[in-house]
């Protein structure tokens, strides 16, 4: 069995920054990453075959990623980077099981950093399963990394700053954007927003640049607006939008139709917590942070000793926070392994924690705007799909969610919701929010949908060979 002083799951900014910090102090690190190359979603590197003709035009994220990759290269000799590695189980006795190249393997760790990231919040409404409706993150991936525009006339619907980033990228790639719908109320928040921006000048500058591009392209930003329906035969042809009140509830009589062939949904991100849940870390629920989040100490350690969680997977806050948290966890691991002198590291930690506090100030304001309100989960109609894998409709789960004392796992057992190939990653967060909206208690511990290995689809062949190398 392979062994690692530090195992890191996830090759995004959080995981890589933890690796750089620990390997820089002489720790032997193994990274398990699902992707082909380091970078995660936000710093994803172009596939072989594509060549950038103008790297400067790639923006600040790209430049930041170049810096991080350079640091990674310097310490790469102490890092065992395993790409295309899908972790499917975390077991007692510090063991991780993962699938790679059609085989299952096990690795034993002393310390573990989970940097599992986040994905776009799934929001069900009539027509959300039509081809042509995709997530903002998915659209961003297509445009940035695959260099393809998914359509000719695009509607952006959602909330928060990521929408502006995506709009900026789409416009630069030559897209025609019909409108950007911001479901939240930004107008009443300007003062708070300015206060949050104070000291976070990088973000402020970026935001301004995005808004300028959008205005120059003549794209309307429609505040307090939501998409209520996507219509079309086999593909999106029309989007119905409406004005909403402060609870994001549709104001009747304000519906309008837009002719579009693509809809990008960006309602913020939800955390990927399958692994921290599997490791039986304590969690709390905070929809502003993206749902279930592991409880952590100041050094990013979870309730399970030696298991750390960093980045968006531990509470959605963006790549800068992920980088900082990764560094903090890296230092904590170095200390735990007794490789650090102490005093100097304490000073660095204090500086990093100050940086985090500054980021969180801005984050809180943005969360205030984008935290899901009840109306968001009232768009589904009887025939709207809730569970995409198993084709389960709202009508099928409606009588159950209204039952006193019912839990998400009971609904799963009765309807098969959450049992499909996505492992409940799509319908799970929806189900919890539906229950919360109806005033049901959602337990602090993620009893939502239990996770069991394998947490990711792994072929039976891989599982069958699971004992091979133990």
């Amino acid at each position: 069995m392979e062994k690692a002083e530090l195992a890191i799951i996830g090759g995004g900014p959080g995981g890589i920054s933890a690796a750089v910090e620990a390997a820089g102090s002489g720790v032997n690190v193994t990274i398990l990453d699902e992707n082909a190359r380091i970078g995660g979603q936000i710093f994803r590197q172009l596939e072989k075959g594509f060549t950038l003709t103008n790297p400067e035009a790639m923006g600040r994220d790209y430049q930041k990623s170049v810096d991080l990759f350079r640091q990674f290269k310097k310490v790469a000799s102490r890092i065992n980077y395993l790409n295309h590695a899908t972790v499917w189980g975390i077991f007692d006795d510090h063991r991780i099981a993962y699938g790679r190249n059609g085989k299952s393997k096990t690795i034993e760790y002393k310390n573990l950093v989970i940097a599992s990231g986040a994905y776009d919040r799934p929001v069900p409404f009539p027509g959300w399963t039509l081809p042509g409706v995709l997530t903002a993150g998915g659209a961003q991936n297509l445009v940035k990394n695959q260099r393809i525009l998914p359509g000719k006339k695009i509607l952006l619907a959602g909330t928060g700053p990521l929408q502006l980033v995506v709009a900026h990228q789409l416009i630069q790639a030559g897209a025609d954007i019909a409108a950007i719908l911001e479901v939240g109320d930004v107008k009443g928040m300007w003062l708070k927003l300015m206060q949050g921006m104070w000291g976070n000048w990088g973000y402020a500058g970026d935001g301004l640049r995005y808004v300028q591009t959008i205005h120059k392209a003549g794209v309307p930003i429609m505040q307090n607006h939501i998409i209520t329906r996507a219509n079309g035969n086999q593909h999106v042809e029309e989007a119905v939008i409406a004005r909403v009140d402060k609870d994001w509830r549709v104001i009747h009589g304000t519906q309008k139709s837009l002719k579009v062939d693509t809809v990008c949904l960006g309602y913020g991100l939800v955390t990927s917590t399958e692994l921290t849940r599997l490791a039986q870390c304590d969690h709390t629920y905070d929809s502003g942070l993206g749902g279930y989040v592991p409880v952590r100490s100041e050094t990013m350690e979870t309730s399970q000793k030696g298991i750390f969680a960093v980045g968006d997977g531990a509470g959605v806050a963006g790549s800068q926070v992920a980088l900082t948290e990764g560094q903090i966890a890296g230092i904590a691991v170095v200390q735990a392994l007794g490789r650090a002198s102490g005093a100097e590291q304490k000073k660095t930690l204090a500086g990093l924690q100050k940086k985090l506090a500054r980021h969180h100030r801005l984050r809180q304001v943005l969360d205030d705007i984008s935290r899901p309100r009840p109306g968001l989960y009232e768009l589904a109609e009887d025939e709207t799909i809730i569970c995409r894998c198993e084709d389960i409709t709202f009508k099928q789960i409606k009588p159950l969610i209204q039952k006193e004392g019912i839990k998400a796992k009971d609904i799963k057992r009765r309807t098969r919701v959450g049992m499909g190939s996505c492992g409940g990653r799509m319908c799970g967060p929806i189900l919890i929010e539906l229950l919360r909206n109806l005033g049901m208690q959602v337990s602090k511990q993620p009893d939502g949908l239990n996770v069991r290995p394998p947490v990711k689809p792994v072929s039976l062949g891989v599982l069958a060979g699971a004992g091979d190398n133990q």
Partner: protein
Amino acid sequence: MAGNAHRIEKGVSRGNHFEIIVDGRRITAYEGETIGTAMMAAGLYILRTSTEKKEPRGIFCGIGVCQECRVTVNGIPNIQACKTLATPECCVES
């Protein structure tokens, strides 16, 4: 609605191109493109038909989470079109 997606030419150059076969039809793919991208560029947005309602589904999350883009590649089912790179002459069934 087919054919509205298009490759971005600005700011990037592409490598070799080759053909892949999707449901018996030959389409062009460039090195580094996923099966989903090549199909989208050819106007093929429907990657699977849903199990119960037999509705068309396409790329949704685009980052390998939702499993909506599962296709069969060279006889192997449940391959994610949004993550899997196209290879010359690979045979895709949607």
